[in-house]
């Protein structure tokens, strides 16, 4: 399969890339790992006239911790996250999620920025970013702006990014002491998108009371979903089996899955319940470890 014709440019600075985006507007698409974009172009679901490859722009591929914030460059590859000791020490959820994204070769190309910018509730990072309460940094002609993750996903393939903006960084608050995180998705085979997935981050105080709960769900809603009632059900409580079961039940009720080859709605809701319960347990175990 061959994509429709397009023009290709590979700017070496952000400014240059942004002015190309301004020039071409809607007709341009940014190319990061290309592992969502190129398949869509080969299938002719997308025929952008201009491809702006941002891989030659330096400074977008670093993971760093500054003060109480973790900075992940937009071009950081899944494989880089998978093997980052620094990241996985504070966020075991990243080792969980990257192993379940596609396969090793795809992870050598796919970027975290592209995974979010694609705006697909089937991708795995959106739910993780919701659980971690991330902020998306976008750079455009007017400079840099911060977009809270809850305001980032607007629709199917639609995000808060403007056509002339580039997602340049993801910022995540460093977890407080007593924090644990976990992700799992049910997949039919390696490389499959989730039948359902759940991302959980929890903070427990010295008495085992939950002081932070972030829960995101993958591919069971038109948009990546924050399970707000589930989070509220945990906050301020000791995580007994009853409390966890209630939170899981809320997630199963509040999601909005559609029937497809992976299962019908009832099955998917049931799986959301199971996954949320298991990930709360796992995150809580990690929080006290």
């Amino acid at each position, binding site marked *: 399969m061959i994509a429709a014709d*397009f023009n*290709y440019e590979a700017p070496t600075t952000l400014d240059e890339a942004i002015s190309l985006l301004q020039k071409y507007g809607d007709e341009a698409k940014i190319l990061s790992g*290309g592992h969502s974009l*190129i*398949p*869509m172009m080969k299938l002719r679901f997308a025929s*952008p*006239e201009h491809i702006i490859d941002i891989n030659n722009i330096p400074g977008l591929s670093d993971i760093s911790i500054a003060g109480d914030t973790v900075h992940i460059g937009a071009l950081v590859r899944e494989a880089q996250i998978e093997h980052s000791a620094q990241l996985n020490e504070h966020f075991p959820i990243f080792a969980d999620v990257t192993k379940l994204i596609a396969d090793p*070769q795809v992870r050598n190309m796919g970027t975290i920025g592209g995974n979010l910018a694609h705006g697909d509730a*089937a991708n795995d990072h959106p739910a993780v970013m919701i659980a971690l309460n991330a902020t998306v940094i976008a750079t455009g002609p007017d400079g840099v702006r911060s977009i809270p993750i809850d305001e980032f996903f607007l629709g199917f393939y639609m995000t808060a990014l403007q056509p002339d903006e580039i997602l340049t960084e993801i910022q995540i608050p460093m977890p407080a002491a007593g924090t644990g995180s976990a992700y799992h998705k049910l997949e039919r085979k390696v490389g499959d998108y989730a039948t359902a997935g759940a991302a959980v981050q929890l903070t427990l105080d010295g008495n085992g009371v939950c002081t932070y709960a972030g829960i995101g769900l993958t591919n069971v809603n038109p948009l990546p979903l924050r399970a707000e009632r589930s989070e509220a059900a945990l906050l301020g409580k000791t995580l007994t089996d009853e409390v966890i079961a209630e939170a899981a039940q809320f997630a199963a009720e509040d999601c909005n899955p559609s029937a497809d080859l992976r299962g019908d709605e009832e099955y998917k809701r049931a799986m959301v319940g199971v996954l949320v319960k298991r990930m709360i347990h796992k995150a809580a175990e990690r929080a006290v470890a």
Partner: protein
Amino acid sequence: MTTPQPPPKTGGGAVRDSFGDLPLLKQEGAGGWSNVAQANKPETINMKKQITVTVNGQAHTAEVEPRLLLVHLIRENLNMTGTHIGCDTSSCGACTILLDGKSVKSCTILAVQANGKSIATVEGMCAPGAPLSNLQEGFKENHGLHCGFCTPGMMMRATELLEMNPDPTEDEIRWGISGNLCRCTGYNNIVKAIQYASAKNRGVEPASTEPQFV
């Protein structure tokens, strides 16, 4: 926190369900995907680019359409047909090559993206007539191939796997080749082939080879 309006439900995505619930038409206004009719495209579209890639140590310069896939550059422009095309949808791994040392699926990379980079293909594993590399020997000794279609991709993937993890467990090998499909050998002998190469690379005598025919 804003509560964005959910969009109308479609099949829930595009490419991933290439065998099933693909939305037949893109959604109007969804994410700004433009599907402008080719006829309306300006003349400047598809300007050829000159690229230079180093393949197995040798530099090649070519003038290519931006839409040319890397796997086609390798197979058709450079006439190196060891790299195979199985699925053409980034699922099977037959097209796996090393791009700057990283195993990638060349059916999902544009040739222009490889400009200035170095590529390793199966042809570079050993010169004609030279002794086989440890991985090639492992596949030969362990009946790690049957029709051989998946083999170049398997070996290129295993090259990076062993580079990153010289002594992988069986589980790590199976996970490591999870992006490569084999339709006829079965994976047991492929895993053994990689174990054989891992041992030999480390100067250890490979376990005695008793291929499994299942």
